[in-house]
């Protein structure tokens, strides 16, 4: 029997993979993809809670992921645009090269 804990475990695993990717990957596009993983971990949480604690007011738990997906798409567009201009200027997508703001 698959219960809520399975979903939460999946979500936690996804989140940690995403976090690890964000912190360790040097490729900008890979960092963006890792961020998407973290978003989706959150979405799974939303849906899972919504399913297991059903009630008339819990419809928001199913609607919210739609908004998150929309925002994530916009974020990805902006993020890719930044990486594109980074590539134009530096001829690389390595985020370690973008350190002009260093103190």
């Amino acid at each position, binding site marked *: 029997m698959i219960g809520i804990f399975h979903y939460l475990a999946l979500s936690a695993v996804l989140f940690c993979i995403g976090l690890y990717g964000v*912190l360790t990957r040097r490729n900008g596009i890979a960092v963006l993809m890792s961020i998407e993983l973290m978003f989706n971990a959150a979405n799974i949480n939303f849906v899972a809670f919504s399913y297991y604690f059903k009630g008339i007011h819990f419809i928001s738990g199913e609607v919210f992921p739609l908004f998150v997906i929309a925002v994530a798409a916009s974020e990805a567009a902006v993020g890719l645009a930044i990486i594109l201009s980074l590539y134009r200027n530096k001829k690389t997508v390595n985020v370690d090269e973008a350190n002009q703001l260093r*103190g």
Partner: protein
Amino acid sequence: MDWIKFAYLIPLLPLAAFLLIVFGFRFFKGSRISSYVSILFNTASFVLSCFVFLKILNLEHTDSYSGPIQFSLSWIHLHSVSGIIPLHLQIGILLDPLSAIMALMVTFVSTLIMIYSIGYMEGDPGFSTFFSYMSLFVMAMLTLTLSNNFLLTFAGWELVGLCSYLLIGFWYKKPSAAKAAIKAFVVTRTGDVGFLIGMIILYWKTGTFNFIQISHLNLPALLSGWLLWGIPLLIFCGAVGKSAQFPLHVWLPDAMEGPTPVSALIHAATMVAAGVYLVARTYFLFVISPTALLVVAWIGVFTAFMAATMALVQWDIKRVLAYSTISQLGYMMLGLGVGPIGFVFAIFLLLTHAFFKALLFLGAGSVSHPFHEEENPFDMHHYGGLKKKMPHTYWTFLFATLAITGCPLFAGFFSKDAVIDSAFQSRILTHNLLWGLALFTAFLTSAYMFRMFFLTFHGTKEPEHQVHESPWVMILPLMILAVFSLIGGWFGFSWYRLHLPWHDWIERFMNPYVQLYHIPVSHTIDWMGMGLGTFVFLAGFFTAWVLYSKGLRFASALENPIIKPFHQLFVQKWYMDEFWGLILSLFGFGLSSIASWIDTNLFDGTVRGIGMGTGGIGLKIRSIQTGFVQQYAFIIYLAVLILIIFVVSGGYLWTARFF
């Protein structure tokens, strides 16, 4: 149309000229347009003053004058909060004989001076700037003249001070001019402090700034003890500074560094007249206190005497005139100080003095015009025998000299000698002494004025320069002023009762004041006053003639052991500059060095310490900013982790005990 409703435009028109020149500077620069703008607006203001003046004259003539006319706007209105006096400030104008005739004089004389300035300032790189300042100056003077309350008067008062600073330091690249400007500003400001304090105490006691309202109050009951004489004397402090009375007269001779038309404006129509006008305007405060009147009278007569002695030994023509102004202002203060009997004559002297003093300064400017290549074009050592070369200047200058020395039939004879005589007739304490000193000063006045006159125009000396008459634009104002130096006095005959149709015109015009202050009107011919006035005039004239025109340069007499110390005293200006220097170096310098120490070590030290501390910390921790986004993200992750552990483990319960 009732022109009197537009009286508020009188000060606003010169202001408009100022703004027009300032904002149109780009287009006017170097051209004569700015002077035309100034003169046009100023003339309009003069015409308006004429209408107002005639209206008041007409009201008086038909006996329908019912007190001063006021127009005011509410400016700031704060209601009374417990324990605090309600604040109700107004801006408004006050039209009565005093302000109407003063506005007329100011606009008339300043217009003539501006016309003269077209010729005098020709080719000066600051031509437009000069006319904008002049317009602002006239506006400031008219504001304080027509204001109906202390606050607006004070605003105009300070604006006059600012304009005098700007104009005295007009040639600011010359160090002496810059210094003179600062001196004028600081010295007059010293007196202003007293004015401000007196004004505030008066408001605290009466709850209003309005002149008319205050004058209707029962002041002796409201102002008890020392306030009765303290408030008028505090306000008099301001007048002492502005009108260059002893001991704050030191700025006026140095103010000669400005262009000559500025000197004429300052000495005749605006700056120094403001002090006398202030005392006249607030005279209701002075009449209730004999102490205050006595102080005013003695300061006045002593200033008159002291300035006259200094004028005797000056070689700079403008300085002679500066000291003569101080001396004449002393007479005006004397006239106000001897009580209501001299009030009208003091105002009369103020008006007539404006004509002949403006004429004297403009004449001196005309004389010095050919000498502008000299280091000091005003040094009388260069002059002599100019009578033939400059006939127009000569004759107009002669008129002014006769007017100021009190030659019969000229303006000074009726105004200045009337002031002296009112000192004799007054019932004030020591009035005989005051009168004697004033009469002796009249002798000195005649002597130093004719000394200057003979040294400049007579003698056989051939000028080194190609001397020529000044252009017409400069001569014309001289001639108009010369006419007024002659006939200006004929409007104040009442003292002598010679029966011309307009014989006691000034006294009738000032009738509201005559009634307000219960001025006794004498209807007898004062032969003694007339005779003595004429006598001292002739005595001074002959003294100067013998010593200077006859060529008896009394160089040997100066070595006389009795005369020499006096001569030295006068040449050194009674050591007043040294006196102020000593006071400043003793008190001012000591105080300021303490303040400086506290400032550099305590305040600056604290501020610098904070600044350097912040900078140091910043230097130490700047290495945290690596620029690697992933490091930042890692730190955020760690922080969130710690927070989660903190919350989950119930750490907040443990921390809560501390709060």
